[in-house]
């Protein structure tokens, strides 16, 4: 998969016990603690890491720094898991929710209103479809990138 972190990018291919980073292939193993990755063993040496995944973004603490890494390959742009997802453009508070799960909506219809930076922002449906799920209720605080509404497309998924 293609990953990006600030100005850096890399193509990573994970195999069974080996990983290819760009043009280098190394043996590797995940070290887990209680179900969380806490180390990456490369060529027999374990480097400590801490990892948080949020959707297609991953925060990794490694070697004393924190890297914000994003998946930027095709899957992201057309994969089924994001087709209907509407993410909060900025942190704010949900002021009004105009739809319910099950509602049929049309492209451009206002789904909810987000208050951020003292202004109200209308969140509109990117497509015709059906509301599958609402991530938040009125009054909830949302983080930038939080999934607000899931829409099942009217046409092919």
């Amino acid at each position, binding site marked *: *998969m293609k*990953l990006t*972190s600030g*100005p*850096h990018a*890399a193509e*990573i291919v*994970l195999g069974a016990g080996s*990983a290819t*980073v760009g043009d*280098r292939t*190394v043996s*590797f193993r*995940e070290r*887990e603690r*209680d*179900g*969380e*990755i806490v180390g*990456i063993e*490369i060529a027999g040496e374990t*480097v400590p*890491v*801490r*990892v*948080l*995944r*949020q959707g*297609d973004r*991953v*925060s*990794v*603490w*490694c*070697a*004393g*720094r*924190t*890297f*914000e*890494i994003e*998946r930027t390959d095709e899957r992201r742009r057309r994969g089924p898991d994001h087709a209907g997802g509407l993410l909060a453009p900025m*942190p704010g508070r949900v002021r009004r929710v105009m739809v319910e799960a099950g509602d049929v909506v049309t492209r451009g219809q206002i789904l909810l209103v987000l208050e951020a930076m003292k202004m109200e922002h209308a969140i509109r449906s990117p497509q015709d479809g059906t509301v599958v799920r609402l991530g938040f209720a009125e*009054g909830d*605080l949302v*983080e*930038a990138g939080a999934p607000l509404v899931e829409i099942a497309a009217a046409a092919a998924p």
Partner: protein
Amino acid sequence: MAAIPKRLLIANRGEIAVRVARTAREMGIEPVGVHAADDADAFHLSRMARSVDLGAGGIAETYLSIPRLLEAAAVMGADAVHPGYGFLSENADFARAINGAGLLWIGPSPEAIDSMGDKLEARRRMREAGVPVVPGSDAGNGTDLLERGRDLGFPLLVKASAGGGGKGMARVDRLEDLAGAIEQTERVAAAAFGDGNVYLERMFDRARHVEFQIFGDRSGSVVHLFERECSVQRRHQKVLEESPSAALDPRLREAMGRAAVEAARAVGYVGAGTVEFLLDERRNFYFLEMNTRLQVEHPITEEVLGLDLVRSQIEIAAGAPLPADWRGGKLVPQGHAIELRLYAEDPVEFLPRSGRIRVWEEPAGPGVRVDAGVGEGTRVGVEYDPLLAKLVVSGPDRGAAIDRARRALSEWVVLGVETNAPLLARVLDSEEFRSGRYTTDLIARLPEAEDPGVPDAAWIAASSALASVAPSGRRLERAPAGAPDPWDAASGWRAGA
């Protein structure tokens, strides 16, 4: 001496509420807290014995609401109130209301707050007491000020009399811009502080901010507890502080300390306060302002002196005299301490960040103290101060303290909300900071961060996390509201099997 209180209402949130609660417990005082209705999950509640809901609304209706705080104190049966810093800590009306309700106010008198809160009044009082102030004007109308500005020279600052802490001021570089800046600052000040008075101060581009901790008691004794170097700032906000200051020699330290004591004495100051000075390149110092509360950066003074300033605040408010060993040169700072402020902010644009802290692992070990206002799971909102925590390191000398700060910073794991840790690292790594010879423009002059790239382990960890589709590997969930019984037919165990 009035009795030490039994139950202390802490009228604040975040790290300072936690900080005050810790000392209260050590003194055998029950710390009780407050929270806004939508802030009931805030971290500071976990260090209180109990906390009460201030009700719905924004800051003005909750943490800044004197009636609601008075009611909270009554409901909880508190016999004393500590305001922390920020919020109502420098609000003389709040101090009066607390005293009026028969509770012990852990802070200076309302009169002292008032006279230092009005910056022009403070300048006047300082001049009378023989404390040097930054060359500048009195209040005046546009014409007077233009005249005075021409005399002072540029750059200069237009400052609101009711402002402070970097708020309500504008820099002016040319005479032609002065009239406009005066008008604008008047307008802003009238709107923000309800007082449109402004004045002018000469501005020093390459100066240091050095402050002195002072303490006064009811008998009129005042001492200083040495200095804090606060020149590492971004947009007039402190980012890192250290003590001692590399800019002072014993003679200058003594002169500034004496001026700080005179400043406090001039307003009959009782309790903990801070006198801020500007120190120019020729080692002249000028009174800037006095903060009539505990400072954010008070821990570095605690570390070099082995004291607990909150304990002293409470004891002195209860009527105790200054400790005998604070006088006569018996207090000697030991080693070096540095405070780093960890803010939730975008490391590129420096804008406050919100989000939820998903992984939070604090640095620890020798010479490391963390005063945090958040923990794992804490929601960080833009409605409150973006200060997450303070890392305070101490070492036998400045070099050891810097190395320790760098080590501790690299241990800190914060995932879920971006922080200014990269900026703090750049400061610690810079030649200019390490040399000790820096001024308030340090951050603007920092070289670009070296970019060592992304380690393979980080790429692989990210890739591995993204590739995963398995449900959580945890067999037993920590969340009680979410702990499915592994043998329960309704649980995820069977559903997933």
